[in-house]
């Protein structure tokens, strides 16, 4: 029932794509298309929630499409339902946002057709129940998002970003293809049911793990496969960026979870070490990269990398516990990871919407040209701030809850017998803590430089508040951040069936606990109550304000900024994004990015201004991608000689081949 509903929604979205091609040039095209998208996604969302919360049994369905003798199989179980909900939540809000935002689009005909197709593809990925359908939807998702990335094709960087993206995406897809090739075996048993039934050997399973890490990881943005992400996500229109960062990466996580937790079967203990190490590195590298950025959307994209790392830390712990049969602990770790999936999708969409609003208001993505927007765009500033607090994992918002749960899972891991894990997990815990702290620092920078201070350019000064639809979308997500932060119990319980499927156990039920606090393991061990904390803060804050205004003074005068007695009228003297990051750059960047500051001081009498240039190198690119590109270019050049041979030389090639083959025949046994 639910399955048919969501499939019809996906079909409707697909049908919307050609429709959009036709109507794209009409004046009211954007609202119509996005409105319809929102409607379809909403229905699908409700269906998914019903499936998930109603703990309905899994439904499956086969259509006579795709590979003829296999057919196209769809299935919705708790896992699919959860991710479907995440996807469609993002889809609904993004479409809502786009109803307003999309009207600023310069070339709607390059966005409108692909947007619904993109949504449909993401929906289908999480519903697919056989390898072919999964990969088709997966790659179709890449393809449509690629089209959206290059929608502003006159900007060279966007086309370049699209190129890197499509190549990396195909790389990932081919890796997954190989993985499924292994799982399906020589006689092509492609449906997931058959794959589950067949248990691969340990070697094959390990190979599948690595291929899945490459395939899903490259889409999710695991370091070192992340390079395309900070290029492609910002290049797309902001509502699409939100979808790519907030939702598509989660679809990638789904792919990983589906393959590694569900299809392959029992994990080996060392798998978790790989995943944990990758996750930890990704988390810290991601946030450090972000700190070096002053392009708002690119900064957000790098934070996606960081959060993916956090998610994979949770998943890695879950794998470890699962491998040693500590199911309840595995359930905790898994829930932590999946809860972060949801949380990140919420606040990352929110933040990208905010950046989109800023972009439309000022036409600027570069924070160095922004500032002081809180005065002209108070509401956007407020919701963006909520997003910043949430993603910085600060109580009482939702980001904190999932990281808190992850920490709880880390604290359970000394019981793991393996020494490797005993040594690795504390380090990963430290990395997690570090990334959380750095994220806070980074978002102080992001919000402070963009919205606070004095406007650095005319554009920033002239900015105007964004439209109602965008605000509605953002307020909704902000509210969601708060709700998920103060009432995490509801969300944790919703995830219980997933844990059941994947690790065969579930966390203790939270809704029953007194005062609505959450108790992951036992009351004596740890508990957190976002609601009370929130209330306390609210009460004591208002109390203080009330008391002071009553008993002391509430008078207030405006004056020029004091600034130790020599205020400077020029906004250029404010701290910029890069100057704000300078201390941290000096601490971490010098080794991690070879960050150098080149001061160019003209001699006395020279009228040129002195310049300070900060050089930041991406070592991962230099170490891996540049050599590969160079190697391909080199071999292309070498082989290209063959285009310019003379006929006689070509003939000699033929002759040589003939002789070789004859020799083979001669020595053939």
């Amino acid at each position, binding site marked *: 029932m639910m399955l048919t509903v969501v499939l019809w929604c996906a079909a409707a979205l697909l049908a919307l794509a050609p429709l959009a091609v036709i109507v794209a040039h009409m004046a009211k095209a954007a609202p119509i298309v996005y409105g319809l998208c929102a409607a379809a996604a909403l229905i699908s969302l409700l269906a998914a929630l019903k499936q998930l919360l109603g703990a309905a049994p899994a439904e499956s369905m086969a259509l*006579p*499409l*795709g*590979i*003829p*003798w296999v057919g196209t199989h769809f299935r919705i179980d708790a896992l699919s339902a959860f991710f479907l909900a995440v996807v469609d939540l993002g889809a609904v809000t993004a479409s809502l946002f786009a109803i307003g935002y999309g009207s600023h689009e310069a070339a709607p*005909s*390059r966005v409108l057709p692909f947007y619904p197709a993109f949504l449909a593809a993401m929906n289908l990925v999480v519903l697919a129940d056989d*390898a*072919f359908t999964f*990969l*088709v*939807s997966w*790659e*179709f998702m890449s*393809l449509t998002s690629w089209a959206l990335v*290059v929608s502003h*094709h*006159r900007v*060279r960087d966007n*086309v370049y970003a*699209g*190129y890197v993206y*499509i*190549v990396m995406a*195909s*790389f990932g897809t*081919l890796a997954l*293809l*190989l993985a*499924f*090739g*292994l799982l*399906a*075996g*020589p*006689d*092509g048993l*492609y449906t997931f049911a058959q794959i589950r039934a067949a248990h691969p050997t340990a070697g094959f399973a390990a190979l599948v793990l690595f291929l899945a890490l490459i395939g899903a990881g490259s889409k999710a943005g695991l370091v070192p496969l992340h390079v395309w992400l900070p290029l492609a996500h910002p290049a797309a229109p902001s509502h699409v960026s939100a979808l790519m960062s907030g939702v598509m990466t989660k679809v990638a996580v789904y792919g990983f979870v589906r393959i590694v937790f569900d299809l392959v079967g029992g994990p080996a203990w060392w798998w978790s070490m790989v995943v944990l190490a990758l996750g930890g590195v990704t988390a810290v590298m991601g946030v450090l990269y972000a700190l070096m950025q002053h392009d708002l959307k690119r900064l957000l994209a790098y934070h996606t990398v960081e959060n993916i790392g956090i998610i994979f830390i949770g998943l890695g712990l879950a794998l470890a516990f699962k491998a040693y049969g500590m199911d309840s602990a595995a359930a905790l770790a898994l829930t932590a990871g999946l809860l972060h999936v949801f949380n990140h999708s919420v606040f990352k969409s929110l933040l990208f919407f905010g950046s989109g609003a800023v972009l439309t208001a000022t036409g600027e993505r570069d924070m160095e040209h922004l500032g002081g927007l809180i005065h002209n765009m108070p509401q956007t500033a407020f919701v963006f701030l909520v997003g910043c607090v949430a993603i910085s994992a600060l109580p009482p918002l939702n980001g904190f809850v999932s990281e808190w749960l992850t920490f709880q899972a880390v604290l359970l891991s000394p019981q793991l017998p393996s020494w490797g894990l005993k040594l690795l997990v504390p380090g990963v815990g430290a990395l997690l803590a570090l990334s959380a702290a750095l994220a806070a620092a980074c978002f102080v920078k992001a919000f402070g430089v963009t919205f606070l201070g004095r406007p650095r350019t005319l554009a920033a000064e002239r900015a105007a508040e964004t439209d109602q639809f965008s605000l509605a979308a953002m307020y909704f997500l902000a509210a969601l951040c708060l709700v998920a932060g103060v009432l995490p119990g509801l969300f944790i319980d919703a995830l219980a069936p997933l844990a059941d499927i994947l690790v065969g156990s579930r966390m203790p039920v939270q809704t029953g606990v007194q005062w609505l606090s959450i108790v992951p393991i036992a009351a004596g061990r740890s508990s957190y109550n976002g609601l009370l904390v929130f209330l306390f803060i609210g009460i004591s804050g208002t109390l203080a304000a009330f008391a002071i205004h009553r008993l002391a003074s509430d008078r207030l005068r405006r004056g020029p900024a004091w600034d130790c007695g020599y205020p400077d009228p020029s906004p250029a003297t404010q701290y910029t994004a890069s100057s704000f990051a300078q201390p941290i750059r000096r601490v971490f960047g010098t080794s991690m990015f070879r960050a150098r500051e080149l001061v160019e001081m003209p001699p006395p009498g020279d009228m040129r201004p002195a310049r300070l240039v900060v050089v930041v190198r991406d070592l991962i690119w230099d170490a891996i991608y540049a050599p590969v590109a160079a190697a*391909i*270019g080199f*071999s*292309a*050049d070498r*082989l*290209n000689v*063959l*285009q310019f*041979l003379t*006929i006689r030389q*070509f*003939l000699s*090639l*033929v002759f040589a*081949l*003939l002789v070789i*083959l*004859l020799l083979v*025949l001669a020595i*053939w046994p």
Partner: protein
Amino acid sequence: MSFDASDAVLLIPAAAAAALALLPGYRITARLNVLATLATFVAALSMLWARPEPGLYLRVDDLNSTFIVLTTFVGFTTSVFSASYIGHELETGRLTPTFLRFYHAMYQVLMFAMNLALLANNIGVMWVAVELATLTTVLMVGIYRTHEALEAAWKYFILGSVGIALALFGTILVYMAARPVIGEGLAAMVWTNLIAHAAAFDPALLNLAFVFLLLGYGTKVGLAPLHAWLPDAHAEGPTPISAVLSGLLLNIALYVLLRFKMLLAVNPAALAPGPLMVTLGLISLVFAAFMLYRRRDIKRMFAYSSIEHMGIIVFAFGMGGPLANFAGLLHMTMHSLTKSAIFFAVGHVAQVKGTQRIADMGGLTETNPLLGWGLILGVVAIAGMPPLGIFMSEFLVVSSTFVRSPGLAIILVFGILVGLGGLFLRLNTIVFGEPRGPTAEAKASYVPLFAHLALVLMAGLYMPAALVAWFENVAKLLG
């Protein structure tokens, strides 16, 4: 021998060729050309229902009926495209009416030769037909009389002739192998007899024969390092001919090769042709993939991409087994449709921009949206992306190969990925960015282009059961 569909498939083009050689005026001739190909196509379709009995010279079975329908169909759509294309060529004066008459006649001769090669039940006739096709294309490649065109035609001619010789030697050897078993005379060259008795043939002779046939016909397939003629012939000839070359002639040669592969497959003592084909296939794939990066001429680039895909197909057939063979057939069909579609698009692009240099094109989606997106769709399809047909075949090839021999699959995937990179690198400069070059609207019918793409799309999503059953039979035939 009573007249039946298979004769029609041969006679219509032959008659049309004669007529077109005589008639003046390009409007009539172009129309007639279209009509003739359409009639041929219909006749070919009719063969699906009323299948003629195999004779000494002609036969129809699952394998070649697949090919014939495909060939005649692409031949038809290409003639439609060619009608609009040629009109433009006349206006710009690149072709004179005399040459045009010659062109149309040759087009029909080519159709005739290809159908003959497919229908032939006699390896001698098969050889003659393939060579006839080669020579006609040689003439058409040189039709523009530019230095490049003559150069390309000449190269094609010489390499082709050597190929012809080698193929003939192989054919003779097959006859030698067959004679002791079947007896002297024509019977020993009839395909049906050969396949029936191949088990008893002398394996050493068969091996030797296959080596020569592989090189001889492999030259036509364009397998590296025998490919040299292919890129230039594609680049310098008229675009409809490039489309036919890539879409059909390569397939024909491959088809002939498959026939002989089947012979060897039947004979247990003979060496397995698989490894040879797999090696050549992978070489062609990787080589062509790298060659894509340094291309400046749009048609030559897609010619190399044809080599790449021929590599994949040969690889698939070399691997053998029901899955791989099915994938190979599917890939072959999809590639013909897609590649000819791409060449349709490229032809219009070249006419709009007045050049084939990629550097002089840009922002096509801006200036000619329909054409630009058509080209993108084609490239996306040829790069093996869903939901288009080639993705399915590549999915089957890769996933079925990886378990059997991981190393090969890795190379295959590597080649595909490199090729994709090259294609998109060039595509970006053509369709995106600031518009460059002339931006006149192309006066052309996009029907063939999008018809092909629609078919490819459909195949990627849903394949009719009949077609599938058919392919599966053929896959079994190929063993």
